[in-house]
């Protein structure tokens, strides 16, 4: 009886969260903590209280993210290593961007972002190729290319951050201050969100759809940097010199990225639903994930996006209160942020309380992307207002 009792006890025993963590989890935590401590010792004297606050919150944030999503750990380590390599190659002189091979062709921010762009487009092709050919190997390759694109893009942003200080210490700022930089951020966050869900659902068939949006963003990015010389690092205008920018902008782009993801899973949903109805043996009906999974993924992406968009808008209001003299001025950008928010709020209400699912909601999520796109780009292009960071 006692042996049986023990066996039952062992089964019932639910290890606590901390006890579930393995060696690598603790290793990760110590690497992050060591890096944070090093940064603080090296640069702490130059930081103000907000920066110390941000640093001390980003350490647990990174540890948590690494524990929650294991694949994030090698990713961030590679990005850190390559960024440090890029910084080391600069050796304190911006002129090296053109002179040193490793910078000119790989890790200067411009080159790294070109690599990111090329790799994203290749990954899009590979994902669709793998889906059409039903080749797991090709799909795995596509995932690997996407990871590489994300590594190069993030490295590019990190190095760009350093470059801004190298050009002139007074210019230095986090690279989320203009349309060029936030487009890179958009590509990266959308890609990372996608890869997280790819790992979680163990399904690679949606990659092409999501990467299509990223490729479109890359297309814009290339046009913008070649045609408008947008990649040039310029100092911040006084209105953007605020610690709020560092948190408001990334939070916003998690929202935008998630809404883009939701729109593309909805496109897949519509294709699948259409395929099942009209051509049950066709590619769309057989190769794409189940409608339930697509629906669930769309919901998860929209709720993630909505949560972050809510926080980002509130942070934006708090920033506005400090910069413009009012937390809400009905400025076109603010108003369109509200419109995007109301749109997804209505979507979520229908799903929560009416239990709406299926084709109309998928269409709505697709339309939502266009509303979001207008808030993100259209406002800067067609309407004038206080948000002046991204004039086209």
């Amino acid at each position: 009886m006692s042996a049986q009792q023990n066996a039952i006890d062992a089964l019932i025993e639910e290890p606590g969260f901390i006890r579930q963590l393995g060696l690598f989890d603790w290793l990760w935590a110590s690497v992050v903590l060591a890096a944070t401590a090093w940064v603080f010792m090296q640069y702490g004297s130059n930081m103000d209280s907000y920066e110390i606050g941000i640093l001390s919150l980003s350490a647990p944030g990174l540890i948590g993210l690494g524990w929650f999503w294991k694949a994030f750990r090698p990713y961030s380590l590679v990005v850190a290593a390559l960024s440090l390599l890029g910084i080391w190659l600069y050796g304190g002189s911006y002129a090296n961007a053109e002179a040193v091979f490793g910078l000119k062709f790989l890790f200067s921010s411009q080159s790294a972002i070109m690599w990111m762009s090329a790799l994203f487009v290749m990954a899009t092709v590979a994902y669709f190729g793998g889906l059409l050919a039903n080749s797991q190997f090709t799909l795995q390759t596509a995932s690997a290319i996407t990871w590489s694109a994300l590594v190069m893009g993030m490295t590019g942003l990190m190095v760009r951050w350093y470059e801004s200080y190298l050009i002139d210490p007074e210019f230095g700022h986090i690279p989320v201050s203009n349309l060029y930089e936030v487009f890179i951020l958009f590509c990266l966050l959308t890609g990372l969100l996608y890869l997280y869900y790819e790992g979680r659902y163990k399904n690679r068939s949606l990659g092409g759809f999501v990467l299509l949006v990223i490729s479109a963003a890359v297309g814009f990015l290339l046009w913008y940097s070649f045609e408008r010389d947008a990649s040039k690092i310029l100092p911040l205008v006084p209105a953007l010199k605020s610690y709020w920018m560092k948190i408001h902008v990334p939070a916003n782009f998690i929202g935008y990225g998630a809404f883009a993801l939701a729109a593309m899973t909805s496109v897949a949903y519509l294709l699948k639903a259409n395929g099942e109805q009209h051509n049950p043996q066709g590619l769309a009906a057989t190769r794409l994930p189940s409608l339930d999974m697509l629906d669930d993924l769309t919901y998860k992406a929209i709720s993630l996006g909505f949560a972050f968009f809510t926080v980002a808008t509130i942070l934006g209001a708090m920033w506005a209160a400090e910069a413009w003299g009012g937390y809400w001025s009905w400025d076109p950008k603010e108003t369109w942020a509200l419109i995007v928010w109301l749109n997804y709020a209505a979507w979520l209400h229908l799903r929560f309380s009416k239990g709406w699912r299926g084709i109309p909601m998928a269409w709505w999520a697709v339309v939502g992307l266009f509303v979001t796109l207008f808030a993100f780009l259209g406002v800067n292009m067609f309407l004038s207002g206080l948000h002046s960071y991204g004039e086209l």
Partner: protein
Amino acid sequence: MRKSHSNGSRLINFLGSMHLAISLLVVLAIASVIGTVLKQNQPYTDYQIKFGPFWFDMFRSLGLYDVYASPWFLAILAFLVISLTTCVGRNLPGILRELRHFRESIQEKSLRAMKHQLGMTSTLNSADAQSVAQRILAKQGFRTRIKTADGHTVIAGMKGAANHWGYLLTHIGMIVILLGGGILDNGSLGIRIAELQGKLKPETRNIAAADVPAISQLPADNSAFRGSVDIPEGSHANIIFLPVRDGYLVQHLPFDVEVKDFRVEHYSTGMPKSFESDLVIHDKDLPKPLATTISVNHPLVYKGLSIYQANFGDGGSLVKLHLLPFTSRYAAQDIDGKIFNDYNLSSSDRKYALELKDFRLYNINDMTQPDGSTKKQNVGPSITFKLRDETGQAMEYQNYMNPVPIEGRSYYVSGVRSSPADPFRYLHIPVDPKGTTDRFIRFLSDLQDEKLVQESALETTKTSMQQAKIDNTQVEDQVIKSMVSLTAIFARSGSQGIMDEITKRFPKEKQAAASEAFMKVLRAAMEAVYQHTLKQEGVTGEPSEADLAFFDDSLMAIDKLSEYGSPWLIQMKDFKQIEASGLQITRSPGKDVVYFGSIILSIGVFLLFYVAHRRIWVWIKPLDDGQSEVILAGSSNRNHPEFERYFEKLQSLFQKTIGQDKR
């Protein structure tokens, strides 16, 4: 008790309905678009020009020029608050029940009908099965209730009830935000009510603040406002202006704001780095005046009022002006001026009023480099003024203080336009080798000197006729005469004057030939005069390439003088810049309320999405043989795919511990 629907309950049903809520969200979104498409709060004259009288009045009566303060927009927001409140009120009892009730009285039938359920027979007796089940649920983090009745026991567990707090917090958060922002901070609502009561009337005239009547003024204890004021360096103010549709109100402040200094810091590229003002607050409640510095993103908060660096402009700079006449008949004149002041000028044939409008220390313009590329470059200080003649017509000028280099040559540049809607047309006066306008002015006055022109014409005609070996006094006379008259016309009215002369004197088919001949003669005459001008300056021998370029530039400038509209080139010789700091001053008592609502909303959103309310029931009935019958069932209000996986795990756990292979 449940009676038929009364009107009241029908109204509550309507206000709390999901249909209304979703409709309101969509209507609010669409209404919000209007104000982003039509630029808000512009001067009414702009709208009049844009839409014409009919649509202008139509749009005005719809409140489209200030959509977000219009009654119908506020009504939508009010409806939203009512709908939200009704929803929360209606759902609250249900939610409280959900939070408190474990549903331990649930029937076997209901459990077996659930989507997630598993029935099994256990070798354990009911007491043991119950204790194991209880331990499992406790370890899984469920709070439990037990009920024994009619020969069976139900263990009801639940966790994640905070999800319902998510519902409450999001909706209450929105109500708090809307009330805080829409009522506490809504200055325009109070103004509108006072206007309807006839207690307040916005001022539309452009008059000094001291002259604004009491009906357009608001006392310092007004609870919420947002306005602005420009204060010159060294001055102070205790009022601000609140824009109201096409007018404004004067808002008194509970203290006095003095601007000591305003600064613009620049990056090495010339882009502005920071705008900041040194302020002193004078308040009788302060033991001594409060001195502080504000900048963009760093406002001052004092006595519940926030003072922001919003703008800047000229605050009445002092300028030394030199009026250089384009004709030797007028004397030059110097003026010690102050921006925003007017001066009467009487040194010319006509009387003018000089109105000084603006001074700018930096002008970062796109400049063409010698290699053809354009680069942003600071071309130094400029002054903007109007010259108004006796009829009231005014021309606007923008004159740069320093010579501006263009394609390797330097010019004094003056822009002129007759309407603010037009772009400036520029007069480029070439700079002589000494860096002055002397040569240009001398050349111009030489051209205006008939006797001198005659002499030069005689000389040059003689020389060229000798060279051509022609001897004909009649032709000579005629050439000289036309040289003199053409030069006079050109000096007076430019090439347009010459063209007028030609159209007057020749039939159409001969005009082209005549114009060519005229230009040749005119140019020869002016070259001769220019030789003379150079000689006076001490330049002898063949003119250099630079001298020839100067000649061409001078002709271009003289050609434009007739259209220039001013008998003088008004040069700024010196200045003392006095800037004005544009301050935005607000009182926003609802801000903290809105922030509180925002925090509630944020917490609520995450609870709503990332916490699922899960319930698990274990139903146990003892069987005759000492074994027991067990039903495991569960439900979740969110994230069903996740719950399905979880329930599978729980199921296998129950099978291994309680089911004991006896399935």
